């Protein structure tokens, strides 16, 4: 069986909020779990995130949002990805009220995490989604 290439994940911090404790912890946990992780740094522009994800050929985009701008940003990013025919799964984490989950999921956000979720759960879900994306894109080659 050929070995799977390493999973590549983009952790992004869109919007103007500067609290990136969570984003950095997730980035490290994913790296410790053997994935290749790119972190955008603060105030990543939505266009730039999508551009980087496509160029870097990542298997998943993780967005950290705490400022309340999650609806605007979540919708913009999923729409931009659709426009460019990129089927990269998107997950979100941070302070995202449960009443907004349906809207974001209907837009195509694959999973939403909050403070109550354990890191291992997040890592497992990322691996599952990223692996599925990697397999799908390789079979499409």
């Amino acid at each position, binding site marked *: 069986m050929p070995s799977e290439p390493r999973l590549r994940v983009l952790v992004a911090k869109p919007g103007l909020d500067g609290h990136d404790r969570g984003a950095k*912890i997730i980035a490290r946990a994913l790296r410790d779990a053997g994935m290749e992780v790119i972190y955008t740094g*603060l105030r990543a522009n939505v266009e730039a995130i999508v551009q980087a994800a496509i160029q870097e050929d990542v298997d998943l985009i993780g967005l950290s949002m705490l400022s309340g701008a999650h609806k605007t940003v979540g919708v913009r990013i999923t729409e931009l990805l659709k426009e460019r025919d990129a089927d990269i799964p998107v997950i979100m984490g941070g302070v995202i009220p449960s009443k907004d989950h349906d809207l974001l999921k209907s837009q195509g956000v694959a999973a939403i995490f909050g403070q*109550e979720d354990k890191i291992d759960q997040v890592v497992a879900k990322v691996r599952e989604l990223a692996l599925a994306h990697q397999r799908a894109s390789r079979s499409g080659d």
Partner: protein
Amino acid sequence: MATPPKISRPDVSRAASRDESKARVVAEDAKAPGPRPATLDEIRADRERWEKETLAPTVAKSPDQDEIAYETRSGIPIKRIYTPEDTASLDYLMQLGWPGEYPFTRGIYPTMYRGKTWTMRQYAGMGTATETNARFKYLLKEGQTGLSVALDLPTQLGFDSDAPEAEGEVGKVGVAIDSLHDMEEIFNGIPLDKVTTSFTINATAPILLAMYRAVADKQGVAANRVAGTVQNDLLKEFGSRGAWVLPIDPSMRLVVDVIEYCCKEMTRFNPISIASHFRDAGATPAEEMAYTLSDGKAYVRACLERGMDVDLFAPRLSWFFYTYTNFFEEVAKYRAGRRIWSRMMKEEFAAKKPVSQMLRVACVCGGHSLQKAEPLNNIARLTIETMAVTMAGLQSVFTAAYDEAFSIPTELAAKTSLRIQQIVNYETDVPKTIDPLGGSWFIESLTDAMEEKVLEVMDKIEKRRGMVECLRSGWLQSQIAQRAYEWENKVKTGAEKIVGVNVFASEEPPQEVEIYEVDPRLEKSQVERLHRARRERDQAAVSGALERLEKDARGTANLMPAIVDAVKVYATTGEIMGTLRKVFGEYQPTTAF
């Protein structure tokens, strides 16, 4: 034989267990007949006896619970018991002294809360200026004694509400202030000589301060009678909070501009609140204190380089720290911090006035300690934290809200937090005596241990040529990220326990709390308000003011006068910051993790 003392000490059994001390005890008794307290030697001897006779058999049967880490969050070991032996070398006058006097360990004022209750200052501000004005009037009516303004992110970063960067963020985490109109509306009917106002504002602090001053001018209140605080601490933005705009050097210049300006024109206003967001980003309590005091040191040096007299600006420095549920360590942290700062100001920077040596501290209780799981439990956490900071003798307290992990607070949550402070003040005996935990063997030992630990970290920073260089190199950011990751792993493995999260974790779905929601139409109405302000102003005056600001920025003048003139003709937050961005460029963030 002398008459036996009325109060007999149990020295018979003690002496019996240590024969060699018996003779000495008797000899001393002969010199000073009558009751006398046990000597340290006697206490040590008797402790050893207790350990052997009483403790050891119990420990053999039921040892310490090994899943509990017997150490503080800063990694200071916590002993089973503290005794006078632990404070044997404590020099009361040198290390503790009197409240209101150097080294201020026990408090910065001679009467503390007997003379004046701490300021109850709840962070608030949301949506539009009109909504914030209504919330402020409500809080003042409910007995709050100071105002604290939360600003939305576009205002914090110098974007107007109609800027593309502001989309989706207007009025979300605080109020939007685009121009002087908004500031006027927030304080409509609130006389600025009757309240003190704290602004959690950093990169755009010079602009907000200028607007506040302009409102005072319009209300007919003299600038030197206006009291309040702008956070104006950019170093911690680079290190942890992330709300920077300009690169480090021009940011430092503006910080000093504000300090210098206030020392001349707004002498009751705190031009800086050196803040410890490092803690919420992951640092331990000792590191939090060390990083924050080191930031203070960097600002002191910058002001001295500007040519200011230390006794002119040092009394205006104020501080802001985080407090979690690690109760005793928090109390020790503040006591140690006051001691370190006063010694440093006196010995290293030759500050002569006592007020130049005082660590005046405001704090937030809550932050990262608050949990989303079973949110009402947060009321207990906030109460413990509020007890800690009042026992530590702080000057101003913000108790965060139990729904912090969900959203900005609802009115009920905000009121409950204010009530926590009022209960501590009116229903407990905490405020009745100064430094109520002072003299506790545990607290004094812990204060000394914290001091040592904080100084160790500060020394490390000095060896790396101070905080500015530690930020430039990314060393500080990586230290903090490392600690945050370590904490997360401790929670994961259960080494640190959080009720409702990793012990007694609720199987039920998360409790729903009422969530404060920002009206989605708000962004549009704020943009309309901004456009109206732009239409109605004297455009030539605005252009002139911005040109002058640009010219001053390219030179070396203090930028505050130009900024005050610009806000008075209704130049916007985005236009003023945009001018500075044009001159200085933007900071480039690190992407390391």
